[in-house]
């Protein structure tokens, strides 16, 4: 039997800690004039603000007027510099149609083994969610025969690497209390 519990439908979020600041993963939809040089003009401020462009997707949608072009850009940027970038883009005459920032950027999955359901899996999830800085984003529970231990892949998202460490400490504590075994990744969050 397979059960999926989804807390949110966010796509996979990546993060890097760049210098002192926290880098966020931003998705923005821009409207630019459909003429030569306009795309480069729109992208220039991003590099000026130290942003790292992950993807540029052109969208020629039928409802847009013929002289503009929709472009979706996914980038990583220092959290502190995002507002500056938005202002700079506007100064360039770029129309920002949509801006999405992912708050929970660190993501880590661990495997839990034991009597997960009978030790109140709802409580296990709540204890992480209640922290305010981390939450259980996904849970995939595999349940064999009723008497045998079940196994789950639990994915946690957190705001920063140190908060992720605290969330994992908490999960270890809960697991020890409930007699569950946690199999952690060897490498740190965000892989």
């Amino acid at each position: 039997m397979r059960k999926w519990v989804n807390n949110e439908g966010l796509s996979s979020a990546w993060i890097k800690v760049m210098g002192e600041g926290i880098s966020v993963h931003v998705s923005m939809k821009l409207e630019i004039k459909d003429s030569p040089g306009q795309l480069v003009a729109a992208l220039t401020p991003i590099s000026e603000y130290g942003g790292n462009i992950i993807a540029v997707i052109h969208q020629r949608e039928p409802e847009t007027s013929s002289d503009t072009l929709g472009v979706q850009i996914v980038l990583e940027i220092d959290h502190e510099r995002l507002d500056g970038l938005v202002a700079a883009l506007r100064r360039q005459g770029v129309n920002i149609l949509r801006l999405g920032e992912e708050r929970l950027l660190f993501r880590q999955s661990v495997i839990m083994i034991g009597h997960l359901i009978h030790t109140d899996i709802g409580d296990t999830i709540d204890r992480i969610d209640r922290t305010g800085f981390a939450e259980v984003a996904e849970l995939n529970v595999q349940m064999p025969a009723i008497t045998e231990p079940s196994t789950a892949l639990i994915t946690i998202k957190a705001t920063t690497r140190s908060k992720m460490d605290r969330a994992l400490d908490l999960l270890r504590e809960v697991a020890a209390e409930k007699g569950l075994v946690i199999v952690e990744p060897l490498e740190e969050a965000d892989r």
Partner: protein
Amino acid sequence: MRIAVLGLGAVGKGVLRVLAEKPELGLVLTGVADSASGWIDPDGIDPGEVLDRKCTTNRCGTAGLTADDILDAGEFDVLVEVTPTNASTGEPALTYIRRALISGHHVVTSNKGPIAIAHAELEDLAREQGVALRYEATVGGAIPVIHAIRSGLLGNRAHAITGVLNGTCNYILTRMDEEGLTYDQALAEARELGYAEADPTYDVRGIDAAIKLVILANTCWNLGVTLNDVSITGIDCLTVDALRLAADQDCTIRLIAEASPERGQIRVAPRVLPRTHPLVIEGTLNAVTLSMDLAGEVTLMGRGAGSRETASAIVGDLLAIRDRFIECG
């Protein structure tokens, strides 16, 4: 260089076979003892004859002649201590090693017990007496990890040691991953092939790997770590589903020993690793990654057990002692 061998199990026999096979190494056997007999001859003993006797009579020499008699006679430069391991007391090996060092003899051992229990004391003793204590064979079989720490990577500071240090567990996890076997099925297979002991507790509960981690940690940092300091989770709790969930992410599970004083961490536990990770090795192999300040990550991989492989580590130690202390061979 004259050597005395205490213990004639798989490791002791392996050492004698190498001595018989490679007389050019200049290692002369002058004493040997098993649990029931012994043989002392300052002029040299033919290792082939010892092996024949052991094979036909299950005794290597004269009945009643003991390890203590060999130590009393002192007719050797290096003691090769390869008696069975006792992980809780280290005895009787610990006493043999102490006696040899106190009387000014070098010691080479494959015995994890005494090194894990009394590393600092024995090292101090060796230093006071101006002799060598070497124990490459205690960790990772043929892999020269202690040589790497003590000579190849001299001048480096170690940030962390991470490794697969138990071949039995690695074999079981490899089979669970590859064939979807349950833990019990894979363990039964490992037993049939002689990779697991009749009582596999010591291996599958992570204790063997933890003892080896203690030895490596003390070799690297000399912080007096003991087995009690290690947080240990074995592999006997792992389900087929756990391996499958890891596989869904293009990962697998291995028993990883990990020590890092910077992170205040010393533990043995099953961990999820990407399949492409250098520590994801197959079957009974062992591997160790040394994370160093100058060298970066250095990973050594090889056979972690076996009579001949362990003899390789012991012979390497013997020749290193000869080169350093006994120039004329």
